């Protein structure tokens, strides 16, 4: 078949700039073929090459004694002792989810699960962080329904418990929703599989589902802004099959146990192209592929289509040839395709043959290593205007406003649609801070959280970046876990705009500083740029996924409040209302600066909570909605009331950082106060739990009524 001619239009449709195309001509010293152009565009788009973000990502702290493998592989690997490792990453599937919510979200989950089991780990926990437009925007409801069903449809069938996440609404996401999927898996620390090929003449094996035309050009689509032609992009979204993924995981883990695998890579964005180039490049080898050997779902597929297809549930492996029969038997047992489609070659060459015709012949290392890298212009985000006068509001009215907003109402409507308990190791399901999962067959427990407050990041990218990490640190601490490591999912607008790039740079600086100070190195991550529609960008949303470890389930700090428990606040309260939930939900104002993050105080207060876990019956971190919302949530979960000491609005709803609310009995409270004095940690008594009302400043409301509001508002708005 004759390939299309390369015209300026064809080049532009591949998302390549004139300079980038000129660079291709220089590298090849000739015009590329159509297939080659597709391969370049797949390797060089923003999604795969990180060309705008690389320079800044390099500044992040990525090492530590707990880190076995940092960024650069499919996922990060962290030591959890006893010869075990946890492998995890968070990745966005924003653009596809907006175009086709069910399949976009489902394949986002599928992709992140593959990243984890490609490295030899069985997935044991999933989370997802979702951002949608205003609740009353005409598209929001269908997006929420589709995305949540897609996540559940894939994760539930695959059989991984979803134990945490976030759901937020803001008009800045009206034209671009965010779907960030996190997965973590468990492996033996000495049985981790990497992507670097080794050995010449080794067979390159295709595993899993067949290749179709779905998703051709998906990564390039995800590297551009949206406009009104968005409906035309639906065919670039892939279609997921969790049943195949489940079999692929079982077969892959079984295959790895046979010793047949030299290197392995999942086929994600830009499918066959990216996975083959990555394995060759990391191993310093060339790769030859013979495309007629690729298992195909559709007839008459071209080389271009096969190289760019993003069909799901596929892997590429370099095989130890003497193990071929054994490896093939594993895949036949699971009824999956197993096909040798090429081999490693000594020269630096990416050679693609189709029916004896050379369709692409490229220098492999150059293709991978010469991807453009931009030092984009950026301007620092201007300092926020100081917050003007904020009127006092009745505290119960303020609380009602928060808990009736889908942003702060209980998210049971969402979490009930996810299987949070499969694998029978889930200790704490979503909805009460960090999720907790026991390490199967041991007493160890892993804690999982995902956090960011985009309002803060917009007002002050650096403090907002710090805050996202600090909140994750606190959520892990509040269950008694020691924070171990972090994955970052950076969602921003168009990096070619200096003010957007400024948000990105600021957030990276803040995240880096916080990860360093709190000893939570970044071990994996993902960048999603161009989250804009018709020039309107999303709120800068650097989602932080983090994990923590407890040596024994006995060390978990509970969430069980009893009649008569004291309410103690750990940390300093100044009453910061800038960019607060109260300001946004009650006054419809998004003004002022983000709260400042004191990383030394964060660390000190976090250590204090962990060191005194035996004195604490229940603990939650303070974040959106401050003391009032935290006290309500803690009391509501145990079905009792709470009385808070009289205080002005800024004290009740302020969002100062480095704070926790804890519940304990009188003797424990006394002991905690003494310990706090010795540790130099501010602790104040702010009220007590008990009764059946929420009481403050002379107002009160029955908990039953508030609880009903809290538990029904999400469904009322979105269901």
């Amino acid at each position, binding site marked *: 078949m004759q390939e299309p001619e390369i015209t300026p239009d064809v080049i532009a449709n591949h998302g390549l700039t004139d300079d980038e195309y000129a660079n291709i001509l220089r590298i090849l010293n000739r015009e590329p073929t159509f297939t080659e152009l597709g391969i370049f565009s797949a390797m060089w788009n923003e999604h795969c090459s990180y060309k705008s973000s690389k320079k800044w990502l390099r500044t992040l702290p990525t090492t530590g004694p707990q880190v076995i493998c940092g960024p650069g592989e499919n996922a990060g690997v962290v030591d959890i002792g006893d010869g075990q490792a946890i492998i995890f990453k968070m990745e966005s599937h924003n653009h596809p989810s907006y175009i086709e919510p069910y399949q976009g979200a489902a394949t986002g989950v599928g992709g992140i699960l593959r990243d984890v089991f490609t490295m030899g780990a069985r997935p044991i926990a999933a989370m997802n962080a979702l951002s949608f437009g205003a609740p009353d925007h005409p598209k929001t409801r269908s997006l929420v329904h589709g995305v949540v069903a897609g996540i559940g449809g894939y994760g539930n*069938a695959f059989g991984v418990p979803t134990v945490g996440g976030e759901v937020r609404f803001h008009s800045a996401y009206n034209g671009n929703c965010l779907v960030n999927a996190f997965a973590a898996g468990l492996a033996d620390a000495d049985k981790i599989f990497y992507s670097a090929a080794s050995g010449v003449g080794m067979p390159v094996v295709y595993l899993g589902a067949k290749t179709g035309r779905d998703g051709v050009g998906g990564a390039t689509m995800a590297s551009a802004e949206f406009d009104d032609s968005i409906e035309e992009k639906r065919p670039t979204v892939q279609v997921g099959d969790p*049943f195949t993924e489940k079999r692929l995981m079982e077969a892959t883990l079984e295959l790895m146990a046979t010793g047949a695998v030299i290197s392995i890579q999942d086929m994600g964005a830009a499918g066959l192209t990216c996975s083959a180039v990555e394995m060759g490049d990391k191993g310093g080898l060339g790769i030859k592929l013979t495309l007629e050997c690729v298992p195909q779902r559709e007839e008459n597929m071209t080389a271009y289509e096969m190289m760019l297809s993003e069909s799901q549930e596929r892997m590429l492996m370099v095989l130890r040839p003497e193990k071929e029969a054994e490896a093939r038997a594993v895949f036949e047992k699971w009824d999956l395709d197993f096909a040798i489609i090429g081999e490693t070659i000594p020269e630096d060459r990416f050679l693609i043959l189709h029916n004896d015709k050379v369709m692409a012949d490229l220098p492999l290392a150059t293709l991978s290593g010469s991807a453009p890298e931009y030092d984009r212009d950026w301007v620092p985000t201007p300092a926020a205007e100081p917050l003007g006068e904020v009127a006092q509001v009745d505290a119960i009215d303020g609380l009602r406003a928060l808990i009736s907003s889908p942003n702060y109402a209980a998210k049971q409507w969402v979490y009930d649609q996810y299987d949070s308990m499969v694998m*029978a190791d889930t200790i704490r399901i979503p909805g009460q801070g960090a999720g907790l999962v026991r390490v199967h067959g041991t007493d160890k427990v892993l804690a999982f959280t995902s956090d960011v407050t985009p309002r803060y990041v917009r007002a002050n990218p650096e403090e907002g970046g710090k805050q996202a990490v600090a909140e994750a640190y606190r959520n892990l601490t509040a269950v008694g876990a020691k924070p171990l490591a972090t994955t970052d999912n950076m969602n921003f607008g168009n990096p070619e705009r200096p003010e957007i790039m400024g948000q990105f740079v600021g957030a990276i600086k803040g995240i880096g500083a916080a990860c360093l100070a709190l000893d939570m190195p970044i071990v994996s991550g993902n960048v999603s740029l161009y989250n804009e529609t018709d020039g309107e960008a999303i709120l800068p949303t650097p989602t932080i996924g983090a994990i923590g470890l407890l040596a024994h389930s006995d060390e978990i700090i509970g969430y069980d409040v009893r009649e008569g428990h004291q309410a103690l606040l750990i940390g300093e309260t100044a009453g910061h209302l800038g960019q607060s939930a109260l300001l946004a939900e009650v006054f419809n104002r998004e003004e002022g600066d983000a709260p400042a993050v004191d990383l030394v105080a964060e660390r000190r207060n976090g250590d204090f909570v962990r060191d005194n876990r035996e004195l604490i019956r229940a603990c939650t971190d303070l974040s959106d909605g401050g003391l009032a919302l935290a006290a309500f949530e803690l009391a509501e979960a145990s079905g009792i009331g709470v009385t808070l000491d009289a205080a002005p609005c800024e004290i009740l709803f302020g969002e100062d950082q480095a704070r926790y609310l804890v519940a304990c009995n009188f003797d424990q409270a006394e002991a905690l106060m003494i310990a706090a004095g010795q540790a130099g940690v501010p602790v104040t008594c702010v009220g007590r739990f008990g009764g059946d009302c929420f009481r403050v400043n002379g107002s009160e409301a029955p908990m039953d009524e508030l609880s009903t509001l809290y538990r029904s508002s999400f469904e009322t708005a979105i269901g």
Partner: protein
Amino acid sequence: MRAGVLVFPGSNGDRDLAVAFRAAGFDVKMVWHKDSSLPDNLDIVGIPGGFSYGDYLRCGAIAAQSPICRAVADHAGRGGYVLGVCNGFQVLTETGLLPGALLRNSGLKYVCRTVGLQVATAASAFTENYSAGDTVEIPIAHHDGNYFADDDTLARLHGEDRVAFTYLDNPNGSVQDIAGILSENRRVLGMMPHPERAADPVLGGTDGKAMFHALAGTFATA
């Protein structure tokens, strides 16, 4: 005591069920779906939760045609015990070992949460450690758990005391709140809730544990 747990390619509760059987003292064999016979001397076969063949066509419909399910039907025909949980219950209705069918949840959404059940009969090897009328808390996690049977079947199930569990607050539209039923000889139990997820104190509830211990008691004294 020996239990066999079936493994379909899309099973995902197989390990959970095996862990619960082992904790109650069973020696557990995992049984591959392509096998055409069960291991010898099994006291009970467990059909686990999950999505046996992706739940394509209808939940459990393809699994019901698998080689191993013919062996399970023979085992039940000889008076053998079978416990089907969630997808396992769907497989049991599709094979005809239990009457009725499991339709899409009335709310049309997947539901995962811990629910209250009433033990409707203690007269079975599965439920004899409970008392009829007991309330237990056991998780559910399904998209198609809406039990349906025609009036004659329902009358028979009730007349023969074969309803094992009912929901206190019906989460899926099941007719007469039915959550689990027994076969005529009371040796096959199918239920949508997951007792194996409520059998370990570290995870919270332990109301499911009594079922595995009751079974262990039955076979230890057999």
